[in-house]
């Protein structure tokens, strides 16, 4: 599958990202790039700094030093709303949905950044405000259709089972029509069928909307199957970078996962 796939230019380039919490170095000058339209995986043992990496990319953590270039625009640090408006969306390892709101409202919230009418128009719910609301409702419904969650549209998400919540979270991220989607363990805690469904959705998103995907995942079979290139982190350092086959063959990766024999 990897052979025929063609990718565009570099969409994201991170250079020398370093992040520390007090004395703990979470990331130590990690650099890698992501090409337009590829599925890029970040893997590594627990505590390797994968989630921190995503948090740096979308501006939630402020790394001590780094250069992050997204779509050619380079930033020393990202701001969260800036990242969002530039087209980066993400999902979370522990579901971070708005639990008191319905599925539809959650998905619509994903489009909030695109909605511009101010509160005076909204309080009247008249003319342009209605038009805007309806346009975005239509776009939200397309995402709902795509992820096949029509039947739970009006259900409060707090009551949904785990697997569906994960899907709603993906829907919320997709609603923003991102150019790059960061997925933090999208398949954690799922059974086999749910994982297969989720893989299909991720690949469909990648194909149909040509969204670049950066994902963190622990299930190696998933990672090796769906990703085009893999970055491996261990203790905040990049230890390998390449196609799934290259990474699988890398001795340092094997050591990081299985341990090294001391004699």
């Amino acid at each position: 599958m990897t052979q025929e796939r063609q990718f565009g230019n570099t969409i994201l380039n991170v250079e020398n990202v370093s992040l520390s919490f007090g004395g703990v170095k979470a990331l130590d000058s990690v650099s890698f790039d992501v090409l337009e339209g590829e599925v890029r995986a970040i893997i590594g043992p627990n505590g390797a700094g994968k989630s921190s990496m995503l948090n740096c990319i979308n501006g939630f953590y402020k790394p001590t030093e780094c250069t992050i270039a997204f779509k050619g625009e380079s930033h020393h640090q990202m701001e969260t709303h800036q990242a969002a408006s530039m087209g980066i969306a993400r999902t979370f390892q522990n579901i971070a949905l708005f639990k008191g709101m319905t599925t539809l409202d959650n998905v619509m919230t994903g489009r909030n950044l695109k909605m511009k009418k101010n509160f005076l128009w909204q309080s009247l719910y008249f003319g342009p405000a209605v038009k805007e609301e309806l346009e975005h409702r239509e776009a939200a419904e397309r995402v709902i259709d795509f992820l096949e969650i029509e039947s739970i549209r009006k259900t409060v998400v707090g009551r949904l089972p785990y697997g569906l919540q994960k899907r709603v979270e993906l829907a919320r991220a997709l609603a923003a029509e991102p150019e790059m989607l960061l997925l933090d363990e999208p398949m954690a805690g799922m059974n086999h069928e749910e994982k297969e469904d989720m893989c299909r959705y991720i690949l469909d998103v990648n194909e149909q909307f040509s969204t670049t995907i950066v994902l963190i995942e622990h299930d190696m079979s998933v990672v090796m199957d769906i990703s085009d290139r893999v970055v491996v982190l261990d203790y905040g350092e990049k230890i390998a970078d390449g196609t799934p086959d290259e990474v699988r063959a890398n001795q340092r990766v094997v050591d990081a996962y299985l341990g090294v024999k001391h004699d």
Partner: protein
Amino acid sequence: MFYREAGQFKSSYQADQAIFPIIQDRWFMAIVFVVAYLVIPLIADEYWFQAVLIPFYVFAIAAIGLNILTGYCGQVSLGSGAFMAVGAYATFKLVTGFPELNIIIAFLLSGLFAAAVGMIFGLPSLRIKGFYLAVATLAAQFFILWVFNKVAWFFNYNPSGFITAPPREVFGFLVSGPEAAPVTRYYVSLIFLTIFAFAAKNMARGHLGRAWMAIRDMDVAAEIIGIRPLHTKLLAFGISSFFCGVAGALYIFVWLGSAETEAFDLLNVSFPVLFMIIIGGLGSVLGSILGAGFITILPIFLTNAPPMVGIAISADFAKHLEEIIFGVMIIFFLIVEPAGFNRLWQIAKEKIRKWPFPY
């Protein structure tokens, strides 16, 4: 049986997004409007207007305001009394300083003053949450009332410290002052409540409401989506305080007629308004109105109930009894239905929908 959405197919998103998507709800609202606008003014007497209905509507506006901030945006505030006081004192200064100014305009302008003050006191909300924010707003409550008490300019150097509603006309109707007819004042408060309730409902179901609820439910995720926490929270503080400010102006100029800062203190206003939204239902406009009704009408009911059934008790005993029953009912209610009247209303609708079958 009668309350069913079955057979009502929506063929456009507009119909699905309507404020009352089900026809029975629309009929219900129409009936409520007819009763409030036509039937009540015909049958109510002065006591009902002055003791029950006007305070109910005025507090309902304040409760909707606080519900925007606390129920939708999740920022606990104990400062609603102070923001109402800002509205009242600003109106007082405006109508005495500019006697030609239409008092309705003065009410709205005072709302803007309250909004500005509310936003200033909302600034700490970026850094502090929950109980700590409640304490910060409590500071607003004490500080603002202290200022209004100390600086004589605010009450026009009146030796008694009272602010008094001067007589003012709108379209030939006297709406404030001691001579104003109760029915006119009733209509003023009702019209304000209607407009503000619809405005709040519309904001709550639009993208602004979703941004507020997103901040309430999961602020980290909201930030990642691109919602700016400070901007969103301050807007909630501003709009909430605008509602409270106008309610405060109506409180003095349409209901009480004259008052001093004590009328706005914590136990008279801030806590009752908070109870209203807790009992009515957080994050619900209808709940705010129901809660306001409950909290304003219950004490009156408790005072009047014993004589009605022929039990003669002394006035001060009745007063104590009323407070005890009031407290007990609130505790009982919170245990039985912590999500408030709004939830009870939904359950009732659900039951009517299935009637006569149990499920």
